[in-house]
């Protein structure tokens, strides 16, 4: 439990080590990266086993940092952050396994990768808005280089767009928080102090602050219409980075919305609530339709992430304990599922066939050439469709129940999103993996099919099984996470905002 801050330090140390050792041996860098990720993940799991769910944050570290501004290096954890810490550990480990084949400047790659992970751990552990902000900014830099140097199609553009949006989002957050701090005469950047400071202002200022902070974080979570960076960036990124970016880094935004933005001002939130909810719903449906017409396999997955994050934002907007617990569950679930989907598309398929165009993949009998990838993708696709038995189902069901308690009409609109998700997922499963079937149509041999594709390697298999195991385990036993999340929502910080609704 008290070892949790070590996840940050271990990751940064690992990054340094990978950089140093990587200049001599690529394999050393890989092993260091894997061991680092496993250690950090192990720390989160160990903390999870001894975790006692309770309302409110449990202190880890609290030392003055810049006392002049009341800034503390303050780390703390509750059920929500623990859920996301475990997700980070899992996604990081799987991401490294899927980056095993990186040969170009391996040391640098893993150094940046681990630095990104360290920043992410830091954000989830922060209990001080300033510290959270610092860790967030630390995480932005590696994102740029990972995409721009190791990415694929249109990588400079994708990297630049992603980073500009990230900075824009964080600038909005910063502006909002500084407004609250300055105008409200806050004594520090602790979450409770900022809430108190905001409370001292009039409703117009409160609304302005909440709008800025929420919009800033929601941009990072891919809320419509500020979502366009997400598909472009995630498609351009190398597989391991796509997995981490879509799986975990998008959650930073949603986490910020929940942890920092929502509690700021209940009065202002009531005004903004319908706007947030409708933007989330438009995101679910619009991104779903866009995913339905993509020609690039990876873009389908990119847009599906936006659609699924819409469910998270809708759960937050519904603002009752049931919906928000569903939203946190969906964050975890989507982290795992998006990781799997990107892994199959980016690593298993693209790096063997060298094409992501659905039209080209249609010509390949991929279910026969890559049966393992086909099975993994089918299972991941089913999970992504929200089929029961996988983690997406309890998450979306909980969100729907909570949303219904808030506004039945929102739930109705979101249910249409479930249907669209089924349509685009089924389409890519059918087109990409199972388009050439039947013995009579086997005859013409496509050039790529004439020489067999490289077999699926062990790191890929282990990574895929880890993620699949997680989504199925949670699908059958969502209580594991909900038991952490629900008590955390009883905390006084959320009390005013999460009023109403049965729990």
């Amino acid at each position, binding site marked *: 439990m008290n070892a949790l801050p070590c996840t940050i330090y271990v990751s940064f140390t690992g990054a340094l080590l990978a950089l140093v050792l990587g200049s001599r041996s690529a394999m050393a860098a890989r092993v260091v990266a894997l061991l680092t990720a496993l250690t950090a993940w192990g720390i989160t799991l160990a903390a999870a086993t001894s975790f006692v769910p309770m309302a409110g944050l449990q202190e880890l570290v609290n030392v003055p940092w810049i006392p002049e501004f009341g800034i503390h290096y303050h780390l703390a954890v509750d059920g929500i952050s623990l859920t996301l810490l475990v997700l980070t550990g899992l996604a990081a480990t799987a991401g490294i396994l899927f980056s095993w084949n990186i040969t170009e400047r391996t040391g640098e790659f893993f150094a940046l990768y681990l630095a990104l992970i360290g920043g992410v751990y830091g954000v989830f552990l922060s209990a001080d808005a300033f510290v959270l902000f610092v860790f967030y900014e630390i995480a932005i830099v590696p994102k740029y280089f990972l995409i721009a140097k190791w990415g694929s199609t249109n990588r400079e553009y994708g990297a630049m767009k992603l980073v500009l949006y990230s900075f824009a989002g964080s600038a909005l957050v910063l502006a909002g928080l500084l407004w609250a701090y300055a105008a409200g005469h806050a004594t520090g950047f602790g979450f409770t102090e900022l809430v108190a400071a905001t409370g001292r202002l009039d409703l117009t200022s409160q609304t302005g602050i909440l709008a800025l902070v929420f919009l800033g974080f929601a941009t990072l979570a891919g809320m419509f219409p500020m979502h366009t960076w997400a598909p472009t960036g995630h498609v351009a990124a190398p597989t391991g980075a796509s997995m981490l970016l879509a799986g975990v880094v998008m959650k930073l935004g949603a986490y910020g919305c929940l942890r920092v933005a929502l509690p700021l001002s209940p009065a202002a939130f009531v005004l903004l609530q319908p706007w947030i909810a409708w933007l989330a719903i438009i995101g679910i449906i619009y991104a779903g339709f866009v995913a339905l017409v993509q020609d690039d396999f990876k873009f389908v997955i990119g847009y599906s992430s936006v659609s699924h994050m819409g469910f998270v934002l809708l759960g937050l907007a519904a603002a009752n304990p049931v919906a928000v617990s569903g939203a946190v569950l969906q964050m975890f679930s989507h982290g795992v599922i998006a990781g799997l989907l990107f892994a199959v598309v980016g690593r298993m398929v693209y790096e063997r066939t060298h094409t992501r165009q659905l039209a080209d993949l249609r010509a390949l009998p991929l279910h026969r050439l890559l049966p393992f990838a086909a099975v993994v993708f*089918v299972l991941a696709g089913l999970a992504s469709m929200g089929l029961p038995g996988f983690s997406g189902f309890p998450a979306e069901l909980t969100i729907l129940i909570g949303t219904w308690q808030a506004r039945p009409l929102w*739930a109705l609109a979101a249910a249409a999103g479930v249907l669209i998700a089924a349509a685009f997922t089924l389409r890519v499963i059918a087109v990409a993996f199972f388009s050439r079937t039947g013995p009579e149509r086997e005859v013409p041999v496509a050039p790529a099919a004439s020489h067999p594709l490289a077999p699926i390697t062990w790191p890929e298999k282990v990574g895929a099984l880890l993620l699949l195991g997680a989504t199925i385990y949670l699908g059958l036993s969502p209580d594991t996470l*909900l038991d952490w999340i*629900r008590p955390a929502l009883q905390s006084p910080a959320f009390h005013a905002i999460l009023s109403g609704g049965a729990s």
Partner: protein
Amino acid sequence: MNPSCLLTLLIFTPWAGALLLFVLRRWLPVGLSRTLPVVFSLSTLILGLVALGRFDPAVTGLQLTENQPWIRALNVHYHLGLDGLSLVLVLLTGIISPLALFGTTRSIRCPAIHGALFLLLQGSALGVFLALDFFPWFVFWELSLVPAFFLIKLWGGPGAARAAYQFVIYTIGGSAFLLLGFAALYANAGTFDFIQLADLARSGALAAKLGGGFWPQAIFLGVLLGLAVKVPLFPFHAWLPPAYAEAPTGTSMFLTGVMSKMGAYGFLRILWPIFPAPLHAAAGPLLWLALGGVVFSAFAALKQTDLKRMVAYSSVNHLSYCLLALFAVAASGPSNPAATTSALSGTILQLFNHGLSAAALFFCVGVLESRAGGLRGLGDFGGVRTAAPVFAGLCGIALFSSLGLPGLNGFVGEFLIFRGVFGLAPWAAAIATLGLLATALFLLTFWQRVFHGPAAGAGVNFRDLDATEIVTLVPFVALMFVLGIFPQLLAGLINPLVTTWAATLP
């Protein structure tokens, strides 16, 4: 064996078989990979008979129940149970699935994977018939789509890709609203348990919790839509003919024999008990839709030249009778208990009988297709009876069973339905006879064009049934006779249940 886990065993034995086949697919010799699925599939019949032995027809509540907490955060329970209705459908599954596998497994590519998918489908269907909590029920309901999708797509005919996609999208489209309906029910009532929800509905507490206005109606419509697509209720049936026609024979047999019952079962187990008042209010228009299904699908079948599509439309027609009876009961309320009992018994018997006759017919069309090199048009055959008397005899019995000839099983269900509907909504019964007429016409056309006349097309030198095919068809035909002559064998299982239903009508 612990008596309390019989139902779990029923559901999961096929799944265990599926897992085994999938894991061992590379190492199994071909012979074994063809027989193992049949063996695992047969487990349902054996365990179903064990359940039949333990079943007490006089008890109208649920028996052999298992109830374990599953997800505390959502008050979800792993709740299984069995009454006469479920038992009849479990037995039907136990009869059709092994025969469908046994009769078709010789000619199937990748028999191990095919068998695994088929067993997965079978277990899911059993789960749907036995689960009493929405969460596990929906797990089985949705998971059944996955193997069905792949069975149709990978082993189906030339149009299979489109048919499979359409089938799944239609069904998921319905299910999304079904899911939303139950999310809303849970949001208000705090439980997913069908029995508790039905109790709440009976006491009026559910209506009070849902409040007034538009939304209770919307919840009802959502659930209705999910089930109506599955049955299918006219006009949500467009997915069915292509899916049934493109599926490989064994899958068609299962789809029509078992899977089509899932929707009708949902109407009886979920929609009717939980939403008695909204169903009563909506029953008038729904009765017209069911009538539309009866009449239009019969005439559509009459127009088909593809035999498989013809049988598929006849499935829509036969299942619409079940809905017709149910809606007639819901519309008229407790006015005429005798007619109500008759209509409801007829519905359940019809579910079973249609399963038998339609599965047998799909198998016969499969035999025709395999002899004709994939052709199955009405005009592709002629004079098959002279060349293949055994086939003609067995197929003829299946045709006449489907047509509802007295003495065969199909008659009993339809007779009881008509007897009941005449008592409740005479005009509906009168219009539905049009469907009977058209059914007789197209089934007789099938019989005449294919089996009579001079040998023509693929009918020339038609090879008669071999041992496997005879072994597949004979149990169907035997049951048609047995249940036609002794319908009380089946009716005895459901009579007390149906009488209670009729007595407790709101």
